[in-house]
């Protein structure tokens, strides 16, 4: 496990100076270094061990209104000189784009000098060794205890688990003097269980946990949750095509939030490929929808002080009571769209509860009465320009707030603006999913095909 060294930071600074001396008017360097160790298990035995160490240096060259971006993993002095020289020469061949420039220094983050300001780095990652990783992986397995159960109406076919830990160190420096660093540890465990019913039909369930501190990693329940999901899916029943209240499990609800976030990005707006174009300051979403950036929540995976240009990420609302409060505009997109710059994305989003605090999955099922509870998506996509979507889904039918039987091979189709306008509930049961705090969601009268 190795963080970015002082020598590598020095090389980065030399690259900046070299780029300027070769004709760049400004430049930005990013050094990204990651070390991942993982252990995969199959049926309670170690199946795969791997060790990955990556480092890369990326340089953005700004030269008389021209822009190029370049990267290499060959970070040694002699090679880097040639690399930077070629980068500057290549940039000179491109057309001028006056919107390409570094962000102004006053917009850039000045609080991320150490890398661990947000408390996302657990020293335990340095103490982890091969024996400890094997021990964690094997301890999480429930294969032996499950396989030995007799007289079950199903057979356990396989258990595939993976434990991994990663140290990520990210450094951004630019020729305006910006210096930002973000250091983070992460510990993850995931498991997939496959079972077969008495006719040999297979059903699988998947569960995972991830966090930045080893003590917070809950590996012991993943296998049981995944097995529970696989077994609960046995014997799917039929439902008719039609309109249903739909409840989306917290572990899957990002699928419906991500398109909203993407539609607010400058790149999509500039390409006229966003179903939320011309929505800034307007009430285009339901009153119950409030989405906030929680970038500065210490200790929570996904928290971040600066974006990919080094710009400070403020906490605050993105959508407030259905009103779009912010587009995600980096320096270039700000220039292209003629709007003030913000940041280039949403890093640690959270949806606020609706219609009241404290609702969990069961309370939301009860609130909805009858419908379909979605526990998994299978493929699908959406039209970025129109917001029309169509996804394969699986889950459970529920009646009077109680789950009745599993369903699968269904298609969930609609339009995001119409879907969100039928928002019934946002739970308080946030599941931390890839840095996003995602709750159970419920929508009224969505189209399902079966």
């Amino acid at each position: 496990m190795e963080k970015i060294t002082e020598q590598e930071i020095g090389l980065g600074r030399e690259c900046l100076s070299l780029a300027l001396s070769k004709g760049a008017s400004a430049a930005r360097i990013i050094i990204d270094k990651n070390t991942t160790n993982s252990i995969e298990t199959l049926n309670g035995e170690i199946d795969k061990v791997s060790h990955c160490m990556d480092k890369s240096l990326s340089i953005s060259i700004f030269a008389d209104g021209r822009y190029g971006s370049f990267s290499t993993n060959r970070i040694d002095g002699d090679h880097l000189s040639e690399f930077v020289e070629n980068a500057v020469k290549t940039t000179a061949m491109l057309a001028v784009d006056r919107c390409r420039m570094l962000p102004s220094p006053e917009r850039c983050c000045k609080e991320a000098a150490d890398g661990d300001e947000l408390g996302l780095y657990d020293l335990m990652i340095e103490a982890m060794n091969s024996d400890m990783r094997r021990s964690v992986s094997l301890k999480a397995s429930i294969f032996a205890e499950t396989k030995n159960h007799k007289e079950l109406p199903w057979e356990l076919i396989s258990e595939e688990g993976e434990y991994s830990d990663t140290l990520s160190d990210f450094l951004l420096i630019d020729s305006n003097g910006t210096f930002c660093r973000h250091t983070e540890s992460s510990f993850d465990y995931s498991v997939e269980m496959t079972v077969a019913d008495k006719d040999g039909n297979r059903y699988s369930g998947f569960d995972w946990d991830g966090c930045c501190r080893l003590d917070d990693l809950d590996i012991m329940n993943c296998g049981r949750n995944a097995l529970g999901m696989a077994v609960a899916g046995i014997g799917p029943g039929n439902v008719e095509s039609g309109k249903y209240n739909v409840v989306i499990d917290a572990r899957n609800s990002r699928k419906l939030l991500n398109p909203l976030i993407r539609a607010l990005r400058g790149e999509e707006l500039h390409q006229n490929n966003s179903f939320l174009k011309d929505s800034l300051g307007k009430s285009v979403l339901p009153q119950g929808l409030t989405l906030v950036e929680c970038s500065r929540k210490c200790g929570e995976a996904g928290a971040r002080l600066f974006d990919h240009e080094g710009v400070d990420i403020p906490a605050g609302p993105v959508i407030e009571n259905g009103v779009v409060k912010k587009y995600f505009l980096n320096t270039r997109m700000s220039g292209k769209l003629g709007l003030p710059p913000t940041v280039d994305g949403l890093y640690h989003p959270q949806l606020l509860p609706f219609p009241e605090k404290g609702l969990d999955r069961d309370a939301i099922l009860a609130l909805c009465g009858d419908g379909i509870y979605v526990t998994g998506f299978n493929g699908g996509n959406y039209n970025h320009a129109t917001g029309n979507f169509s996804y394969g889904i699986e889950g459970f039918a529920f009646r009077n707030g109680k789950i009745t039987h599993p369903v699968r091979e269904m298609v969930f189709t609609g339009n995001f603006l119409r879907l969100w306008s039928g928002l019934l509930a946002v739970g308080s049961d946030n599941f931390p999913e890839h840095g996003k705090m995602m709750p159970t969601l419920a929508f009224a009268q969505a189209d399902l095909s079966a």
Partner: protein
Amino acid sequence: MILDRQYYLNIFCTDERGMEELIATALRHGGNYCDLFFESSSNTDLVLQDGEVSSGGFSEDYGVGIRVLNGEKTGYAYAESTEWDAMKKSAEAASAIASGSVPSGPAISSPAYRGRPNPAADRYPMEIDWRKKSISDLIPYLTRLESLVRAKDSRIDKLQAVISSEVRDILMYNSLGELKYDTRPTGAIILSATFSQGNVTENKYVSRSLMAGAEMISDALLEEMAEDIVNGIDERFAARRPKGGRMPVVMGAGSSGILLHEAMGHAFEADFNRKGQSVFSGRMGQRICPRGINVIDDGTIRGNRGAVNFDDELVPGQKTYMVEDGVLSSYLHDRISAAYYGVKPTGNGRRESFRYHPLPRMRATYMEGCDARPEDIIASVRKGIFVDEFSNGQVKIGEGDFTFYVKSGFLIENGRLTMPIKDINVIGNGPQALADISMVGNDFKMDKGASVCGKGQEVQVSLGIPTVLINNLTVGGE
């Protein structure tokens, strides 16, 4: 492209003795097989946006992956340097799989092919090396492409065109003494546009990709792409969602090969079957489609995105019949699964880069044509849909439920194409859908797009199919 052996040894600053020493280090705790995968790659991207090629750059990646097998168990590590100390450290990390454990499962002991790579049999020659092509030579192609497209349709609001190229120098060596090397070029041109009509906006995407050098770009290709991106846009504006439910689906020739990729290809990958997880586990030799249907995964098509001279574990590329006359005849094997099943590896061991260990992966997956005329297939459907443009697909290996997202198609009413449709997901179950294939056309077509397959790591693939009728799939709708 296959160059002289010494060219590759020089790039990676190594020789056979050095590689043998590295393998000995990796196997010092035990294990019964080891392979080394050296890679040096360079990528270039050029982007036209707002009428100007104002964005571009290149990236380079260099390193060696070291894999140790202890029976079916894998140890893997890589170094981003070919200096001895870095490689030795990675070899020791990979060796951990054998530390204190006995081998489980059969060992890989037979070489796949002892001979040297033969330049005359090269499946992806590169006449014009992308690495020697200045980006200033490529810029005019993008501006010409934009002019061609804009001249064809005044409704184009925004247009983005990309030329992307990659060249990978590969050197592989294993503990069986096999040595293989080649240079893998891939070029892609990607065009995306938004069209405005009144206050309605629509988008469209077209791509072309080959394993070839810069000679792949021609005026004819640009003209073909310009024509493709504006073709069907009237229908796109007019299109609606159909009423959803179960119905017959006619899959148009070419890109509908996504059906094979999702409904059967992944489930035929032998790692899933070895672990008993696939819906097709234990079904070898059984009828899974009607008679007359042949489904192939092919690494031998010259210039195709799925072509391999040798796969990423030194096995010669080959043409593999997965389904012959409707009967499941072969899984797609890497060396581990081939040893498990006691068969020869099929050349499907592929990986994204030296950062990943190889897995059974598809190459060019397609169904051979039969004798039905496409118009007769459509005419046979009273009420259903015809689909011919897709964006993505997915499958659940155990359950066999697969989906693909339809960008465009038509309703079929009383044997005729009527209302255009768009933006719907179609879902089915693999074994059932294959059994439900009732007509296969005589119009086989290979898709030309830049298809990518994801399985924890990405590899380039391609697909093809003639027009096919499936009697019953679930179609999304409102």
